[in-house]
């Protein structure tokens, strides 16, 4: 079954002037008007979903098997703050990929 077979098509009606603006914006990003609208809708949906999530973590494919080493110190950082940050980053690095 092709990629489009399960996808729902919708009809969008725009005034000619609005469509010309859409074409121009899409062209500037090397997109078709359809792809531009799809991307804008997906981004808006993602922003709204984000309001219901606490942390969204993306893990790079080439990072998945890598073990994080010791935390790099910042300039002039005290031992106390370094230990606090190390503990925080241990917990952050334990968050699984959002997928």
């Amino acid at each position, binding site marked *: 079954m092709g990629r489009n077979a399960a996808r729902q098509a919708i009809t969008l009606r725009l005034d000619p002037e609005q469509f010309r603006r859409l074409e121009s914006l899409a062209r500037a990003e090397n997109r078709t008007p359809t792809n531009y609208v799809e991307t804008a809708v997906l981004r808006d949906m993602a922003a709204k979903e984000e309001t219901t999530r606490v*942390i969204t973590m993306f893990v*790079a494919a*080439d990072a998945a098997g890598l073990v994080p080493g010791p935390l790099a110190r910042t300039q002039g950082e005290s031992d106390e703050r370094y230990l606090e940050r190390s503990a*925080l980053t241990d917990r952050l690095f334990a968050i699984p*990929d959002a997928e």
Partner: protein
Amino acid sequence: MIAEGAFIEVLFPTTEKPRQPGLPHICYCLAVRPPLALVAYTTSAPWPPDAPLPLGIRLFTQEEAIALNQRRAFRLHLNRQARVPLTTSWIPHLNAPNQGVIAVAPERLRQELYDITLELLRRYERNVERLGP
């Protein structure tokens, strides 16, 4: 050099391709633990007006942006993070003399962002405990 508090350009992954290098965004570095870095997303795109601003998003005015060597007002999403390898495929200017660091947040701002991250993490862990991972 890249460390907590640095703003750096990262090819932050997109929602559509969440595990691959995506579009160039200035990101805030939360931590460096070689061979990995943990970065948070920023954007200058406007937030949808009818969507509430969740915990973890810090708005920067144009004045604040300029102080951080950035041209436009932007928002930092501490709630949108990526763990990426310290390589040029993710951090394009990594091999530059300053590793592509655009600005470093002053201590007070770093502490503010640290406190927000800590609160986010507490909420995240409470949700995981209650709802499961």
